[in-house]
């Protein structure tokens, strides 16, 4: 029973990694760059949601708000976080990355790290360095087997959100015209242009989707561990990036699989080996996987064409 609990916790934490990893992998797939600021967009999403709910409960809802009112306020705060992050993602792409479209990948990488620090410091300036206490978007827990197995509703919600997002993205990239255009751009931008596809707009759209997902991940993450501070996004961001590489960067199912596996490994390592060593174990597994299969679990090895 204990093992099952660790497993479920791992899967739900892994679902958050997976949602973040989707943002890394989609942006990498199309823009061939690692957007290291992605983790900090999560943090921004957390703050937007935090301030929106604080404002709603403090100013709008009165002393004894009904459960529905709180629910609606929470939903609105999540939507608001998604909108702000989407706009932020598109602005970051347009201002920081678009001018570097023809530049070397090192310049883009350094810029991404710069954007990451910029966001963290801007958050410190705007919101202060003191951690905020984030209230979970959903309380309560599910009790199974006469109370032997208790699963928090946040954990369930996270897994459901992850599955819904995965199905949504698969349908979008597989069926819709824009989704197909996105795949075409990720394969060959020049040829995509000859088809009449606006490559810049397609890249913006990818950043928009990835950032909206980051907002959802931010809210879920803060519901898990309620301490919200300017560096909240950086470690989960790095782990999710690891998950994306683990699953095969550029591959959507790969990000999903990588994220969930990473969550499970982390949870089991914390439970059975050592809490302090869990991160080290995580990255050791990544190194082993990359030694055996350099393209990641579901990644395709595509040789450079000359």
């Amino acid at each position, binding site marked *: 029973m204990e093992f099952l609990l660790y497993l479920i916790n791992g899967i739900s934490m892994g679902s958050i990694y997976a949602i973040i990893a989707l943002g890394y992998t989609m942006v990498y797939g199309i823009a061939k760059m690692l957007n290291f600021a992605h983790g900090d967009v999560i943090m921004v999403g957390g703050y937007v949601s935090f301030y929106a709910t604080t404002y709603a409960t403090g100013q709008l809802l009165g002393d004894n708000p009904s459960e529905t009112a709180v629910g609606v306020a929470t939903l609105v705060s999540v939507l608001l976080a998604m909108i702000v992050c989407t706009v932020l993602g598109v602005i970051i792409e347009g201002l920081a990355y678009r001018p570097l479209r023809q530049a070397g990948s090192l310049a883009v990488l350094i810029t991404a790290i710069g954007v990451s620090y910029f966001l963290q410091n801007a958050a410190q300036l705007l919101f202060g360095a003191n951690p905020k206490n984030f209230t979970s978007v959903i309380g309560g827990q599910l009790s199974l087997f006469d109370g032997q197995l208790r699963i928090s509703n946040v954990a369930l919600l996270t897994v459901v959100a992850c599955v819904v997002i995965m199905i949504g993205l698969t349908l979008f990239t597989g069926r819709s*015209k824009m989704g*197909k*255009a996105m*795949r*075409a751009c990720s*394969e*060959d931008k*020049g*040829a*995509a*242009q*000859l*088809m*009449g*596809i*606006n*490559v810049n707009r397609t890249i913006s759209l990818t950043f928009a989707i990835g950032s909206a997902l980051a907002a959802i991940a931010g809210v879920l993450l803060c519901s898990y561990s309620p301490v919200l501070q300017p560096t909240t996004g950086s470690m989960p961001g790095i782990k999710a990036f690891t998950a994306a590489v683990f699953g095969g960067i550029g591959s959507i199912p790969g990000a999903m699989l990588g994220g969930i596996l990473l969550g499970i490994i982390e949870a089991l390592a914390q439970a059975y080996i050592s809490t302090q060593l869990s991160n080290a174990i995580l990255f050791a597994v990544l190194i082993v996987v990359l030694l055996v299969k350099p393209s990641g679990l579901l990644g395709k090895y595509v040789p450079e064409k000359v």
Partner: protein
Amino acid sequence: MAALLEVKNINVYYGAIHAVKDISFQVNQGEIVTLIGANGAGKTTTLQTVSGLLRSRTGSIQLEGKPIQNVPAHKLVAHGLAQVPEGRRVFQQMTVEENLEMGAFTQANSTIAPNLERVFEQFPRLKERRRQVAGTLSGGEQQMLAMGRALMSNPKILMLDEPSMGLAPILVEQIFDIIKRLHQAGTTILLVEQNARMALSVADRGYVLETGRITLTGPGKELLADEAVKKAYLGG
């Protein structure tokens, strides 16, 4: 006759390298026009300048009398220009049908089905393989797919860049048969080729490019018989 495509005095540079030097040519409605020349003569550069992937420092490019030299590449398809790029460049990881849909990206959704039927009529092989991923097609099939994809946009002019490149002689014959068929069906074609003999034998008119300049022009049959062309491009 009014030119469908008129290119006047274009000059294209790669950094300090002057790749296309003051080239002018025109393609009339319903014609096959070919640009021939050796490797590095500037054929592909010229074509990419017409399709907006490269920019000319001077001159003008007009499609049906409208200047298009400053229109971004992705908007030219809607103007009626379709290019089949060198090396085919089909979307390898997408299916044949998805590739064709991408060709119709700028078209209204209602035109996709009839266009798809028309392309499948021209290329029955593609219909057989419509659900197959393009990367698994043979070189000849990929060339057909690239041509079909370009035709999906109902182009006024189809530009083909080295369609015979890397194909076995029997497939080259097939591709040129298709080009002739498209021409008979009324498609205007601008053909860039290293295979001068094949290109000139199907073309109404040809232009010979040498190190970025047009050195000779005339009807396809005349160029085919020209001593200088024979010597330089047709192996004696």
